[in-house]
């Protein structure tokens, strides 16, 4: 009986020591996570000039794409997703003009 009690006490001590270790590790993990988030932010944050360049580039690409689609439509081809690339028959298409005007 006393041996069992002794064994239980030992288990309890070991568990307590494990718990202490977990508590000691917790702030360390927390600081690691914070550092990770900070580094991610730094990695993503581009200089303002760079951001503007990326936006301008995207707008230019969109503009060129829109011009190309408009040219394709004016040359007599559908640009709507329903019949993209097929020849326009019987006049203008509501869905192509709707798409071009929306942009």
């Amino acid at each position, binding site marked *: 009986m006393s041996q069992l009690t002794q064994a239980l006490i030992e288990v309890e001590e070991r568990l307590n020591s494990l718990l202490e270790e977990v508590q000691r590790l917790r702030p360390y993990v927390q600081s690691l996570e914070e550092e990770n988030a900070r580094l991610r932010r730094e990695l993503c944050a581009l200089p303002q000039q760079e951001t503007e360049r990326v936006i301008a580039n995207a707008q230019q690409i969109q503009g060129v794409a829109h011009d190309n689609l408009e040219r394709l439509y004016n040359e007599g081809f559908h640009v709507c997703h*329903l*019949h993209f690339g097929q020849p326009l028959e*019987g*006049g*203008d*298409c*509501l*869905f192509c*003009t709707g798409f071009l005007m*929306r942009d």
Partner: protein
Amino acid sequence: MKVNCSKDSLLTGVNTVLKAVSSKNTLPVLQGILVKAEDQHLIFEATDLEMGIRCMVPAHIEKEGVTVLPARIFSDLVRKLPEAPIELELENDILKINYYESNLSLRGFDPDEFPLLPDLNGEETFVLPVDIFKNMIRQTIFACSTEESRPVFTGCLLQIEESNLRVIATDTHRLAYRIAEISNPENCKFQGIIPAKTLNEIYRLLRDDEENLTIRFNEAQILFQFGSVVLLSRLIEGQFPNYKQVIPQSCQTKLFLNTRLFQDSVERASLLARDGNHPNIIKLSVESERLSIDQSSDLGEISEIMNIKKEGNDVNIAFNSKYLLDVLKVIESEEVLVEMSGSYSPGVIRPLDDPNYLYLALPVRTS
């Protein structure tokens, strides 16, 4: 089968189902009309596998039976029958038609080969007011396409959502949209493209004195039931385009026009270009409070002038006159509102006193 009935009963049954008879030669039995004598009724059925129609007429049945008769000749015979009591008698797949002291016989197809028309019992059911639905068909169906290469445009989109019933049709050059408020206590939802042929038949068969029609549907088929008629149709597969994105939200010019005067002017202006090979293009010029509708061809030229009420900018625009006339014929309101945004954007036409209808047509680009 042995049946006594009137010519009228036979004629009603045959005429009701005739449009569903297949015109293709794929399956001979589909070129026939199924005639079944049952429970003091004659039941007529025809189908081309896209659409099926069943019609029931009262008759005195001495002996029940069923046969399938070749549709074209049977309908011609029924039409030519005298107004006299008529007896139908089926013996060994041959139908004898007796009237006065005369008789004729007609060989039928094997009725076992005739496809069954499913009743869609147990599927979702919805009841529509006939007058509203008929009007919705009339105001939209003309905008459907007839090109089989683009099936989704050969039908009308029917949407039931909460208390709204919508019918939309487009051939990609113009679009007709009609919405109506209906009672939908069970919050039934439906969205499907119904072939224009089916809707034409429903419009033809619906009588004005009928109050309601019941529809039942599943994912692939829709069934309409009214009076003694049941019409089953497949739904057109495919995604109907997002029609909302083509409806302009603003405009630069608003014209307030008398519907009949505008229709008459467009009709007159379109007379000079009727050679059938080219679209009938008329030019509309709005300057201050004057609308000029012009047309010129080798035959001559016409300039119709209307004094109008206008808001916004002057505009020059050209339309296919058919696109204008089709809609003006189905608008009952005394005045229409025509909204435009320059020469190349779609023109919107709506009845001035009815916000539930809208039609838009693309202008024609002229040099």
